[in-house]
């Protein structure tokens, strides 16, 4: 390898221009590493598993206008009407859905005297069809039994819904509350008094708003509670994916019967819900990607510019090297190795800088610590960029004829 003399000549003769490119590469490397890390985070968020059969689900949310008499009766009629729509496999009503804008939560205790809650979790209230309709999978225990369901009457106070005897919890929550044990048969407390027994464990169900500071995304509890449509919940319909749009139209029509004093607030597929929910993440991901792309282009141009300048400046030297026996490949390699030295120096500097930028972001925007995995990404990107950028100039250098050594003065 011819690294040593190239390095010596860089240090002796091309310090300024070389340093500028190194700094440019370092900055780009640091920013790209951070951006890759942030994009990775967003991507991971966007791919969050909700635990429900998203592709087959749609929801319709109603709001009552004025006083509603017999909301439970209305709800039963609605469910029957929805079930009658061709293509609907099953229907349920729930107080909340994943990716929805509101979330019902409670702290959970393992014994009533405990002052610190053992966990926080989202409360899903669902009827007997809830589990099957949204596509939840039991991994232990059983589903609710018919006798265990109660009707929620908001006018009796919100605590009334907690008068159930049984709950089903997610695996994530079970592992948190009863590590190493099967949670089935265990007792827990809402607040500090109401005991309930765990009868089943489901694989997962995302909290409506996802991860939060006090609870991971899959800490959820299912309660055997029938809610009326008036509390801001949703009807959830399960259909074949291809039927969703039509069924949603039919459902909206079925629920907007004339004379009923209520309006359809929302109607959408779960895919739309998800897209909306992660809209900001996706936008940020794209923005970062575009910034990276622009930065890489500018850096590539910088490398091409300097390498082209050096090739031109050293035309005679290249001719002399060829006269002394360098092959075309050896001339091209000279510039490739030179580029490798510069990018490597830039990358080393850039790694340090990446952590500095990350530390600053952590302080200002509460971002997590840069994962080291982002660094090889940045490094490989810039090595590749450098080699790609220098290819043109290196080939031009290799094409300089050896006669230049004797012909030009």
């Amino acid at each position: 390898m011819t690294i040593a003399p190239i390095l010596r000549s860089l240090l002796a003769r091309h310090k300024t221009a070389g340093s500028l490119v190194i700094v440019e590469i370092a900055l780009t490397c640091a920013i790209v590493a951070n951006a890759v890390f942030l994009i990775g985070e967003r991507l991971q968020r966007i791919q969050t598993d909700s635990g429900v059969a998203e592709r087959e689900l749609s929801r319709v949310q109603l709001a009552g206008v004025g006083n509603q008499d017999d909301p439970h009766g209305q709800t039963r009629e609605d469910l029957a009407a929805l079930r009658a729509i061709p293509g609907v496999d099953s229907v349920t009503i729930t107080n909340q859905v994943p990716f929805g804008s509101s979330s019902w939560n409670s702290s959970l205790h393992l014994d009533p005297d405990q002052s610190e809650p053992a966990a926080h979790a989202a409360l899903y209230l669902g009827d007997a069809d809830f589990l099957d309709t949204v596509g939840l999978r039991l991994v232990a225990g059983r589903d609710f039994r018919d006798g265990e369901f109660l009707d929620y009457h908001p006018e009796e106070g919100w605590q009334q819904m907690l008068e159930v005897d049984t709950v089903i919890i997610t695996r994530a929550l079970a592992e948190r509350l009863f590590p190493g044990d099967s949670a089935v048969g265990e007792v827990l407390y809402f607040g500090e008094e109401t005991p309930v027994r765990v009868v089943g464990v489901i694989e997962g169900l995302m909290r409506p708003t996802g991860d939060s500071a006090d609870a991971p995304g899959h800490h959820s509890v299912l309660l055997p509670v029938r809610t009326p449509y008036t509390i801001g919940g949703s009807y959830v319909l399960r259909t074949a994916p291809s039927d969703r749009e039509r069924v949603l139209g039919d459902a909206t029509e079925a629920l907007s019967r004339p004379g009923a004093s209520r309006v359809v607030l929302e109607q959408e597929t779960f895919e739309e819900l998800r897209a909306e929910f992660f809209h900001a993440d996706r936008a940020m991901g794209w923005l970062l990607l575009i910034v990276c792309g622009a930065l890489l282009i500018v850096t590539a141009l910088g490398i091409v510019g300097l390498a082209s300048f050096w090739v031109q400046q050293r035309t005679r030297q290249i001719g002399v090297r060829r006269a002394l026996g360098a092959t075309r490949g050896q001339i091209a390699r000279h510039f490739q190795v030179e580029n490798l030295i510069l990018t490597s120096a830039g990358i080393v500097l850039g790694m340090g800088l990446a952590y500095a930028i990350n530390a600053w972001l952590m302080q200002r925007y509460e971002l997590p610590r840069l994962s080291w995995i982002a660094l090889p990404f940045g490094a490989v990107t810039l090595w590749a960029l450098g080699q790609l950028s220098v290819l043109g100039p290196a080939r031009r250098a290799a094409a300089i004829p050896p006669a230049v050594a004797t012909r030009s003065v």
Partner: protein
Amino acid sequence: MLHMRTISKIYRTELVETHALRELDLHVREGEFVAVTGPSGSGKTTFLNIAGLLEEFTSGEYELDGESVRGLSDDARSRLRNRKIGFIFQSFNLISDLSLFDNVDVPLRYRGMKTAERRRRIGDALERVGLASRMGHYPSELSGGQQQRAAIARALAGSPKLLLADEPTGNLDSQMARGVLELLEELHASGATIVMVTHDPELAARAQRNIHIVDGQATDVEALPRPGHGGLAATPSRI
């Protein structure tokens, strides 16, 4: 060592065709010190470039060290240059980014020589031209004469069969020119084959044999032994 038969070189541009060499016949034997003279534009540099495999010829036969070079690939020509030929240029052509050590190292690295071997050869070559103490210096820190001696060291280091020099003293004042010429004579005395292009008749007179190129054709002018010029007398001919 060097046999050219009916070598022609035509430079074609859009407008003109220049016949730089016309069926040139030229032979140099091993161990000879030949001066090539001729008016400006007569084809001397063209001849030297073809001899040194820097350029290809249009037609004819060229045999270097017993091997025909017609139709060789660019890489093969590069390797042949690297092993068999040492160049000395009018304008020295040292690489200004590199120290003397690294300059002399250039052809050795292209040959892929081992580090220890390169070190030894660089040391020997610079020693031979009296610049061993200047190894770490850059070309710009040396006088013209010293630069040309460094360039000769670079040409020598790979022990080439043939030294080609194009006006090696053209950019030097007469005192430095004398120094460089004496060095060439020394090299010749120790067995090197040298072909030197010059338009200075006084320099040419010190070579063993003169070849005159006019209008792309060579006329051999056998130098007569003259008193005061030791070149020929001191060197037993190997013909």
